[in-house]
C-alpha cells in the first residue's frame, strides 16, 4: 500500500453518522468514496469503534456490489446493462471500453489505477439508454465510439 490510511476520514464519518451498528453502511460508503475502496486496515478500526465483529463488517462489505475490497480507478466507468440498455446494445460498448483499456471480466481496473470498468444492473436512466456513468455523471445514448472518445478525453485531461 503506497499510502498510510488516514483514519480521520472514518472518525469524521463516525461523528456524523453516530458510532452505532446502523451507521455502518453510511460509514463504509464514505470510506469507499474517499479511499476508492475499503482498505483492510479499516476493518479492525471500525470493529473497535462500532463494537462489531470484523466478520460482520466483512459480510456487509461483500454483500453490496458497490463496496470493493480492491482499489478502484480514479474514474469508475459503469456500463449499464439493465434491460433497456442491454437491448439498445450496451454490450458492444462494454467490449469497446475493455479493449481500449486492456481490461476484462476479471481484470476490472487499469494498472495505473486510472480506470475501472464494470457493469451495473440499472442506472435508472432508461430513457437515455444505453447509458454509461463515470463517477457520478451520466453519459446518455452512448455508442462504442463515443464511449472510447470519452475515455480518451478523460485521459487527456489528466
Amino acid at each position: 500500500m503506497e499510502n498510510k490510511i488516514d483514519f480521520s476520514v472514518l472518525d469524521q464519518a463516525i461523528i456524523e453518522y453516530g458510532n452505532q451498528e446502523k451507521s455502518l453502511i453510511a460509514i463504509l460508503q464514505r470510506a469507499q468514496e474517499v479511499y476508492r475502496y475499503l482498505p483492510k486496515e479499516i476493518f479492525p478500526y471500525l470493529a473497535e469503534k462500532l463494537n462489531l465483529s470484523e466478520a460482520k463488517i466483512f459480510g456487509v462489505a461483500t454483500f453490496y456490489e458497490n463496496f470493493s475490497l480492491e482499489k478502484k480507478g480514479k474514474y469508475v466507468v459503469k456500463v449499464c446493462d439493465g434491460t433497456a440498455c442491454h437491448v439498445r446494445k450496451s454490450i458492444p460498448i462494454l467490449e469497446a471500453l475493455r479493449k481500449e483499456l486492456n481490461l476484462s471480466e476479471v481484470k476490472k481496473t487499469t494498472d495505473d489505477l486510472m480506470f475501472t470498468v464494470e457493469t451495473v444492473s440499472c442506472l435508472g436512466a432508461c430513457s437515455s439508454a444505453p447509458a454509461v456513468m463515470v463517477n457520478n455523471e451520466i453519459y446518455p445514448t452512448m455508442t462504442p465510439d463515443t464511449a472510447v472518445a470519452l475515455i480518451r478525453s478523460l485521459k487527456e485531461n489528466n
Partner: protein
Amino acid sequence: MDKQYMIIDGIEVTIEGERNVLELARKAGIDIPAFCYDPELSIYGACRMCMVENERGSLEASCSMLPKAGAVIKTNTAKLRKYRKMILELLLANHCRDCTICPKSGNCKLQEFAYKFNITDVRFPNNSCQLGSQDKSSVSIVRDSSKCILCGKCVRMCAEVQNVGAIDYAYRGSKKKIATAFDGPIANSPCVGCGQCAAVCPVGAIVVKDDADKVWDAIGDKNTYVDVQVAPAVRVALGKELGLEEGTPLMGKLVTALKEVGFDAVYDTSFGADMTVLEEANEFVGRLSGNGKLPMFTSCCPAWIRFAENKYPEFLSNISTCRSPMQMFAPVLKEAYKGDKKHVHVAIMPCTAKKFEGKRDEFKDKDGNPYVDYVLTTQEVIRMIKEAGIDFKALEDSACDNPFEEITGAGVIFGVTGGVTEAVLRYASSDKSEKALEEITYTGVRGFEGVKEATVKIGDKDVKIAVVSGLNNTSVLLDKIKSGDVYYDLVEVMSCPGGCVNGGGQPQAEREARHYRADGLYKADGVEVKKSSEQNTAVVKLLASMDEHKKHEILHVHYKGNK
C-alpha cells in the same frame, strides 16, 4: 383472564407466553421440523421448514409467528409437505452428500429430514463436493463450506451467546457463505475454540477435530505407555450414545472400556481438580489479604483464557495463576511414570478448546514436549469405544489406577457451572457437616442462570462471588466490573453456557440434556464420601511434597497474552 388457546392440528393449545407458534406446537407434542431455529438464539427464519398453514391456506414460518388466541393452523398438509420436500431437495442439490464418510453421519438433521420426508431422488445436478472447501486450520474444529446449509446457527451462537463474532455471513446470493473476516482460516480469527458452533450445527459443516487416529497409533505401539485422564463432565455425557440414559454417571464403566480399548492406566481429572481447589483457594486467600489483584477469575476454562487474551487483556493479571486441573495433573502423571517406554499422556475432555490448551507453549516441558500429548473429546472417545466393538452397557465398573484413584465430590462437580465455586466454598467452610455443605448449595451457586451471585462469609469477611457461564454474559459482567457498577472478590467463568457438561466436545444434545448431565454430576458427587478437596489425602500429600519452586513450575502459569 380466561385462558387463551390456539388450535393447532385440531388440538386446543393453551398459550402460556410461548415465544412463537413453533414452541407452542412443540409443547403440544407436535414436532415441527426446523434447521435454523434454536430456542436460545435469536429468530432468523431462514430455512422455512417450520412453515404452517392457516385457515385461508396461506403459509407462515412458525418460528417467527407470535401465538395468537383463536388462530387455527395446521402443521402437516399436502401443501406443506410439498414445500418442505422442495426445500429439502434444493438444500440437497447444494450439499456435498458424501454421507457415508461424513463425521456427522447418523447425527445430521439434513440426513434425518431427507429420510423422514422420503426424499429418494433429487432432480437437480449436484457438484458441491469440492476440494478446498474444508478449513482445518483450527486445532479444535473443522469447517466444511460444502456441507453448510446457511442456517446461521453458528453465526448467532458465536456472536450472541459468546460475543466472539469470529464468523458471519459473507458474499451474496449463490456465493453466500459463512466466513471469517476476509474469508481467512479460522485459526487466524478471534475464535476461542469453544466449539459451541459445532454443538449447534445441524449438519457436518462444523465438526470437532478428530485426533483419535493418533491415539490409536500410540495405543497400538508396544513400546509406548499410554495413560489417560478423564474430565468430570465426560462421565455424564456418554450414556445416550452408548445405549444408556442421558446424564447417568458412568465413570466406572468408562474406566473398564478405556482399559479394553488399550490404555495402560486410567485416571480421573477430578484428582487434578482437587489440586486446583487447594492451590486456587490458597491463592485467593492471599489475594484477599492484599497479595494480588481482585476480583480473581478462575482459570480452568481455556476458551475463557483465550477470550480474555483477545478482548480483555487488562484482566489477565486478575486470572488465577493456577493451571487447569488437566494441566496440573498431567505433569504429575508424566513424572510418576518410571517405566522405560515412551510415555504418551491423553486427556479426555468435554471441550474442544482443551485441544488448544494442550498445544500451548506454556504447557510444554523443558524439552518442548507437551505434558498432554493428545486431547480427545467425549465425542471421539465414544467413537473409539464403538470402533473397538465394546458392549458398553454390559461392562462392569472399574476403579481408576493407583496412586491417584482418590477423588472427592468437590472435584467431580467442576464440570458444571458453579461447581468450581462450590468446591472452593466447601474447602473454605470450617464446618464440614452434611447440613453445612447443603447450605452451600443454597447460596445460589447451582443452576443454569447465565450469571449467579452469592455472598459468603469466609473467616470474618463477606466475600462477594459471581458465577458466570457463556462469554457474552461474561463480557457484560466484565464491562460492569470495569465501570465500577459491580464489585466481586471471586468470579468463576465458564465459556460454555451451563459449564463443561455442555462443552463443544460433548455429544450433540437437546437443551434439556444438559440438565440431566448436571444432575448426573451432582449425583456422582452425592455418592462420594469425601466432599471437600482437602479430604483427598493423596492430593494433600502430593502438594506437601512439593516446595514452592516446584509448585510454581508445575501448578501455575502466566499467560503471556497473544498481542
